[in-house]
C-alpha cells in the first residue's frame, strides 16, 4: 500500500548544496532536548549558527476553536493541556477571566486554596524545569533529586483533586473541594525540607565547572530585546526588568502575602537559573503564609451567584429550584454578560493571559490564549545566531518552553 517514493522528507525552500559552504541543520522535532515538538532550522557556518528558524505547530490542537464550541465550564479541562507541567495555573487563569467577566467575588477559603494550588504548581514547574534542564546539560543526579521532590508535590495534588498532571482543580467561582485532612501537615513537612533540597541542587550546580561553562554568558537577552519580544516571567526578570504580575497587578491574595521578586541584570542562562532557584524559595515563603491563613476562614468554597454558578450539592438535592438551575447550567451553560476582558496572571512560565469576547451566549465568541512560551520560542530567532550547537540545548532549556502552550 505504501509507495516508497512518497515518504521522501520534505524540506521547505532548503537546498543542501550551497556555494557559500553554509550547512542547514534540522534540530528536532524529535530531539530529546527540544522540550516537546520543536523543530529548529539552523543555518550554520561550521559550528556557529548564523540564522535560526523555529518551526512550531506539531502539537496544535486548535484550543481557541474548541473554546468557541464549548460552554465555559466544559473548556476548563482543556486548559489543563496547555502548560501541562503546572495545569492548575492555567485553570486558574481561565476561571479568573470568566469571574472578571461576570463580576464575581470568590469566598476567602477558595482563595486560600487557590493560592496553595498556584504556588505548589509553581514549585512543581520550577522543579521540573531544573530537572530537565540539568539533564539536558548532563547532570543526571540533579534530575533524580528534583523529580523526587516534584513527586511529593504531585502526591499532594493527587490527595487534593485525584489527578497528578491534568488537575482541573479550580472551578469558575471557587474550588470544588476542601483540603483533605493531611494536606496542610504534609505540605508543611515538605516545605520544612525544601530549603535543604534547594541547597543540595545549588551545591551540585552553582560552582560546577561544566554547568558554569554551559550557562554563564550564554544566551544573553538584553532588556530591549526581552521587552520587544513580549517576554515575561523569569525571561524578563533575568534581563533586568522588575515586573511580576503578582506584585504589580495583584490578584487573589497576593497583596496580602509578603514576598520579594528576584531580579537580575545579566540576562544569561545562569541568571535565569539563579532566578528559578530564588523563586522556589519565595514560593515556599508564600506557602507558609497561606497555610496560616487557612485557619479561621468560613467553609464556603463556591461563590453564590445562582445565575452563573450551581448551588451547593446540599441545596441541589433538597431544593427544587436549585436543581432546576443546576440542570440549566449543566446542559446549556452559563451566559456571561456581553463584553470583553483580557486577564493576565503570572504563571510559572510568564504572563498567561486569557482574552474572552462574550456576546452573551453560552459559548465564548472569541477566546484568545496568550501563552508566554509562544514568544519565548519566537525569541530564539534573534537569540540563537552567533551561538554554537551545544548552546542551543542550554538556551532552549532555560527559556522553559512547554509545547502544549506554544501550539495550543
Amino acid at each position: 500500500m505504501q509507495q516508497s517514493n512518497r515518504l521522501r522528507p520534505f524540506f521547505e525552500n532548503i537546498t543542501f548544496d550551497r556555494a557559500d559552504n553554509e550547512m542547514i541543520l534540522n534540530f528536532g522535532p524529535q530531539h530529546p532536548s527540544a522540550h516537546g515538538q520543536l523543530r529548529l532550522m539552523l543555518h550554520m557556518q561550521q559550528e556557529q549558527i548564523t540564522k535560526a528558524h523555529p518551526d512550531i505547530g506539531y502539537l496544535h490542537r486548535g484550543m481557541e476553536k474548541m473554546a468557541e464550541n464549548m460552554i465555559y465550564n466544559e473548556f476548563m479541562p482543556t486548559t489543563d493541556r496547555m502548560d501541562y507541567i503546572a495545569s492548575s495555573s492555567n485553570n486558574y487563569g481561565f476561571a479568573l477571566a470568566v469571574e472578571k467577566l461576570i463580576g464575581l467575588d470568590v469566598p476567602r477559603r477558595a482563595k486560600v486554596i487557590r493560592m496553595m494550588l498556584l504556588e505548589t504548581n509553581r514549585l512543581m514547574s520550577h522543579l521540573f524545569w531544573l530537572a530537565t534542564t540539568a539533564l539536558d546539560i548532563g547532570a543526571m543526579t540533579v534530575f533524580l533529586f528534583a523529580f523526587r521532590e516534584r513527586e511529593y508535590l504531585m502526591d499532594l495534588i493527587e490527595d487534593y483533586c485525584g489527578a497528578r498532571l491534568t488537575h482541573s482543580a479550580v472551578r469558575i467561582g471557587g474550588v470544588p473541594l476542601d483540603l483533605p485532612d493531611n494536606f496542610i501537615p504534609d505540605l508543611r513537612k515538605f516545605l520544612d525540607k525544601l530549603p535543604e533540597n534547594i541547597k543540595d541542587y545549588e551545591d551540585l550546580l552553582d560552582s560546577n565547572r561544566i554547568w558554569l561553562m554551559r550557562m554563564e554568558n550564554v544566551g544573553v537577552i538584553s532588556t530591549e530585546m526581552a521587552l520587544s519580544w513580549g517576554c515575561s516571567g523569569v525571561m524578563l526578570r533575568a534581563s533586568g526588568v522588575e515586573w511580576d504580575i503578582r506584585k504589580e497587578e495583584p490578584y487573589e491574595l497576593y497583596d496580602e502575602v509578603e514576598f520579594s521578586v528576584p531580579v537580575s541584570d545579566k540576562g544569561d542562562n545562569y541568571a535565569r537559573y539563579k532566578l528559578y532557584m530564588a523563586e522556589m524559595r519565595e514560593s515556599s515563603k508564600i506557602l507558609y503564609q497561606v497555610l496560616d491563613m487557612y485557619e479561621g476562614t468560613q467553609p464556603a468554597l463556591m461563590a453564590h451567584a445562582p445565575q452563573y454558578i450551581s448551588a451547593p450539592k446540599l441545596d441541589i438535592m433538597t431544593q427544587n429550584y436549585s436543581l432546576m438551575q443546576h440542570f440549566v447550567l449543566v446542559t446549556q451553560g452559563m451566559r456571561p454578560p456581553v463584553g470583553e476582558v483580557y486577564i493576565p496572571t503570572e504563571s510559572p512560565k510568564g504572563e498567561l493571559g486569557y482574552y474572552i469576547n462574550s456576546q452573551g451566549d453560552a459559548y465564548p465568541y472569541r477566546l484568545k490564549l496568550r501563552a508566554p512560551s509562544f514568544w519565548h520560542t519566537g525569541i530564539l530567532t534573534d537569540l540563537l545566531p552567533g551561538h554554537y550547537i551545544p548552546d542551543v540545548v542550554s538556551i532552549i532549556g532555560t527559556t522553559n518552553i512547554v509545547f502544549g502552550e506554544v501550539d495550543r
Partner: protein
Amino acid sequence: MRAYTPKDNVQKKPYYTDRYWVAPQVAKHEVSSDAVFARDLEAISAKFTVLEAYIQVDQMVVIINAEDNFGVIELMKNSLEYNQLSELSAIDWLAAEGKFEIFYQMLSMSKRKRVRIKCKIDEKESIQSVEKLFRSADWSEREMYDMFGIVINNHPFMKRILMPDDWEGFPLRKTYPLQGDEFASWYEVDKIFGKEAREIIGPENRDPARVDRYDTERFARLGHEVPRGADISQGEPDTPLVYQESEGVFLIEKFDAEKSVVISDRDR
C-alpha cells in the same frame, strides 16, 4: 427535512434560547474617570481619529481607523511609555458585518496600565505590520494570518506558523467547521500515500469517539475476539471468555493480603 444551518457561521449554537432574555452588559466607564488613561487618550486623539474609547474591566479600549494602526502604536510606544505588545489577534465578524476586528493588547510597566487598541478591516483588506515596533508582532501576525487569512503588509516572513504551509482554509474563521473540512480529511492521505490511495484508506475521521464495529483490521474487538481481518458482517462466532489469570499467572504468586506490609506513614 434537514435543519437549516447558516453557511457563514458553522459554530455550535445553543439548542435553546429564551426569547425574552436580554443579555446584560459588562459595564463601560468614561475614560475621564481615570486620570492616566484620560491623558493617554488625549495624546492619541490629538493626532489620530478616535472612533470610540471607554474603560472596561480596568483597561482602556480605544477604537481607531485601521490605517492608523502603525501610527497609534508607534505613538504609544515612543511617547506614552507602553513598552510591551502582549497580544495581537483578530475576531471574525464576517457573518454579522463582513469585517475582521483586530486588537492590540498593550502594557505599560511604568504606569501599570493596559490598553487595547482595536480596529476593523474588510475581509479582503490587508493591514500594516507593527513588527518594526515590537518584534513580538512577528509571530502573532503570522498566527493571525494563519488562523484568519488576514494579509499583513511589510511583514518580514509572511508564512503560516501553526498549520502546514500548504494548508487550505483558515481554521479560526466562523465558516471553518470544528471537525475540519473536506481538504483536511484528505490532507494526510494525499500527502503521505498520494491521491490514488484515497479509495483504499478513506478520509480521515476526526470524531474521536468513532469505532467501526465491523472493522476487524484496525481495531481490537470488544467482546468476542475473532482473528484479525475476519468477516463478521454476518454475525460473529460465540467465543467464551477465558482469562489467563484464572489458573494463576506464570512466575507471579497469588497476592496474599495477610502477608503484605502496608506503609502507612511515609517520610516526606
